[in-house]
C-alpha cells in the first residue's frame, strides 16, 4: 500500500492510478483501504470515496477469481448479448443483483463496448477475449475453466499427499 503511494509521490492528482494499482493488488477496494489512501494523500475520505464510486472500474465488493465480462456494446447487443448474459446467469445461478458465485469463483458483469465489435457477441474472461460466442460455446468455455480448476486442485492434493 505505502509502496504504491510512494511510487506515486503522494500526489493527489495521481489518485486514479493509485486506486487502480491498489485494486490490482487486492482485486477490489476494501473500505479501510480508502481511508488509508485518503490519510496518506492528506485529503478527505469523502473525496476518495467519491472518485472510487464514480468510475465503473472500481469495485467496493470482492470479486470472483474469474471475471466474466459480457460486452453489451451496440454490435454485441444486436447480435444477442442479452441472451448470452441470461445463459450465464442461469448456469452460474446469478442475477442482475447477484454478480458473484458463492464459492468466489466467477463474477459476471455486463460491460460497455470492448471495441471488438467485428467479433460480436464478445465474452472476456479475465483478459482473454472470445469472439462470436453463443450460449453453447459459452457453456464450453466455463466447463473448460471448471475442469482446469478441478485438475489443479487434484494436482495440489496429490502434491500434499506425497
Amino acid at each position, binding site marked *: 500500500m505505502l509502496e504504491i503511494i510512494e511510487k506515486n509521490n503522494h500526489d493527489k492528482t495521481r*489518485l486514479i492510478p493509485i486506486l487502480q494499482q491498489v485494486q490490482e493488488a487486492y482485486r477490489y477496494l476494501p473500505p479501510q483501504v480508502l481511508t488509508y489512501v485518503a490519510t496518506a494523500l492528506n485529503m478527505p475520505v469523502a473525496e476518495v470515496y467519491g*472518485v472510487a464510486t464514480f*468510475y465503473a472500474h472500481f469495485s467496493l465488493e470482492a470479486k470472483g477469481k474469474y471475471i466474466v465480462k459480457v460486452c453489451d456494446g*451496440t454490435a454485441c447487443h444486436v447480435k444477442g448479448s442479452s441472451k448470452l448474459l441470461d445463459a450465464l446467469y442461469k448456469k452460474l445461478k446469478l442475477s442482475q443483483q447477484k454478480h458473484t458465485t458463492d464459492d468466489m469463483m466467477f463474477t459476471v458483469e455486463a460491460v460497455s463496448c470492448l471495441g471488438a465489435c*467485428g*467479433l460480436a457477441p464478445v465474452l472476456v474472461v479475465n*483478459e482473454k477475449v472470445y469472439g462470436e460466442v453463443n450460449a453453447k460455446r459459452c457453456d464450453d468455455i466455463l466447463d473448460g475453466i471448471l475442469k482446469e480448476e478441478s485438475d489443479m486442485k487434484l494436482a495440489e492434493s496429490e502434491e500434499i499427499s506425497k
Partner: protein
Amino acid sequence: METITKIDLRQVKETYNKTASRIRKRIVICAGTGCIANGALPVYKAMEKAIADAGLELFVELELNRHDLDPAYQITGSGCQGFCAQGPLVNILPDETMYVKVKPEDCTEIVERTILSDEVIDRLMYVNPVTGEHNKGQLDIPFYARQNRLVLGECGHVDPENIREYIAHGGYFAAEKAFTQMTETEVCDNIVESGLRGRGGGGFPTGRKWHLTLKEISDKKYVICNGDEGDPGAFMDRSLMEGNPHRVIEGMMIAARGIGADEAYVYVRLEYPLAVKRMRRAIEDAMDAGILGDDIFGSGRNMYIHIMEGAGAFVCGEETALMASIEGKRGMPMPKPPFPAQKGLFGKPTVINNVETLAAVPLIIRNGPSWFNQHGTVGSKGTKTFALTGHVANTGLIEVPFGTTLREIVYNIGGGVTNDDGKVTGEVFKAVQIGGPSGGCLTEEDLDMPLDYDNLIAKGAMIGSGGLVVMNNQSCMIQIARFFMNFTQSESCGKCVPCREGTKQMLSLLDDIIEGKATQETFELLEEVGLVVKKASLCGLGKTAPSPVLSTIVKFKDEYFEHIHDKRCATNNCKALRSITIDPEKCIGCTACARKCPVNAISGEKKQLHFIDPEVCTKCGICYDVCKFDAVLGFN
C-alpha cells in the same frame, strides 16, 4: 545527465529499406484484438516453426547491419488490418496475397506452396459471400479495394512495436519538419488550410482550436490525446493506437509544436489493455531514440508524453470531464466557457484532440494541406474511419473519403445485409445506426446521401466517432432506442438535472412502451422530455442523449404506434408484446409444456393439440425451452 544519441531519420530509413529490399517474402500476421481473439498467436508460432522446418532463414526484426541475407524471409505481427470477422489474417508481401481464417495447421502448406513456390492456396482465400468469387488479396477483395486508407494506411503493414519500420515508411519526418522548418503559426495555418475537423464527434475545425490555444499566453500548455473511445460500436481509436501508435505520437508532437506545449497526455480507456501496452512501448522507444525528450531534433524544444488509463466512465470522453479525470477527480464536465484553449488541464491552455484527428496531422504536414483537402466534400475534408458492424457480411474497420454513400459502405464494402442466420439476402435492410448513443438512424431513403458532418446533422444524426451498426428487419427500433437510453442514463454523471432526471424519465417511458403499458400521452411526453434534455443539458453527453430516441421517432413513428396502440412488436423482440402460440402442425400432444407451465396457461389432452391461454400466459418461455418439437411459436 546521460546523453541520448539522437536518431538520424534519413539514415534509419535508407538502411532499413536497403535491408528490406533483400527480403524475399514478408509475412504479416494481424495481431489486433480481434485476430488475437480468433487465435492469431498460435498461427504466428506455427508459421515461425513451419519456416524453420523448411530450413529458411527467418527474421523477426531486420538486423540493419547485415547485408548477406539473400534470400531471406521476415515474419511480423501487425496492428488491426480491419477485417476482423475474417481473422486470423495472414498477408504475404510483396505478392499481396491475403489468407483469411488461417489455422496453425495451415502454416506448413502456406510455407511450401505460397512462400516457396508462389502458388495461391484456394481454400484459404476470401470468398465473396454474394458472388462466390475467390479473391486473392487486398487489391481485389471489395472490402479493401473500395476503401481509401490514408489514416489507417500503415496499420496492418508496419510492426507497431518497431519504431524503425515506422521511420522507414516516412514516419517522424513531419514532426522534424514542424520542429525545425516551420513556425508555430505556420503549423496551425497548415491545419486550418487542410480543413481537418475533429474526428471525435463534434467536428470542430482542428486548426482553429490550435490557433485559439496558440494565442493564449502562458508559461505552460498541454496537449491531450483523447483515446477514451466510449461509444459502443466504435473501435477506430483502439485500432490506431494498437496498429500505428507512432503516428499518434507524431501527431501529438506536431500539435505541441503548433501551440507551444511541451507536455502531453494520452488518455486511453482501460478496456483497451493492448492499446495501452503498445502506446507505452512506442513512447519508450521514441524516448530512447531521442525523438521525444529534451531538445527535439536540435530545436531546443522539449516534449514529454504521459499515459493516463481511464477507469470506465463514458462521460470522460467529454473534454472537460476528461481533464478532471487526469487531475484525479470525479470525471464531471464543467460549463464552457472557459474553453480548454483558455483554461484547460491544471488551469493551463490545452488542446484536446481525438486519436484519429491527431493521426491525420502528420499526413497533412508530410504531404501538404492541399493534398489532404482534395479528399472529401466541401465542408468535410479528408477521410473518415468507420467501425462497420452489426448485420453485415464484412464487419470490420474501414476508411472512406467523406461524401461516400451509405449504399457503397453497406453493400459494396460491407458485402450486403445479413439475416439472423448470418446469410446475405436481399431486402432485409432496415436501418443503420450511426454515431452511437449521440447519433441517430438512417434508413433506406438515406442510402444514397453523401455522408459528411453537415448532411448527417441535417438528418438528426451525427458522424460521432464513426460507429456504424447495420440492422436487419428483425431488429426492433424501440429496443435499439431503449438500449442507447439505458446506456446514456447509466453513464450520466449526475451533475446537471436535465440529463440526470430526464434520461431516467425517458428510459421509463420507453419501458412503458416496450411493456405494453403506453398510451398516446406516453409518446408525446417522451418526445417533449427528449427536446428538453437536448436543450438544457450541460455537456455533449446530455445534449445528444435523446438523439437515438428522437431520430427513431421521426423515422419509425409507425413502429412506435404499433407498440403503443396495437400492443404488437412486429419483430417479436419485445417480450411483453409477444403472442405465444402452438404450431398445430408440429405439436404432438406430449404434454411436456403443460406440465411445466408455472401458471397453468396451457391446456390440452395427451396426443392432442395444446393451446395457450393468452390471458394467463406470462411469456416466461419455459414451454419454448421444454418443447422438443419446436412447436411453440413467438420466441426468437
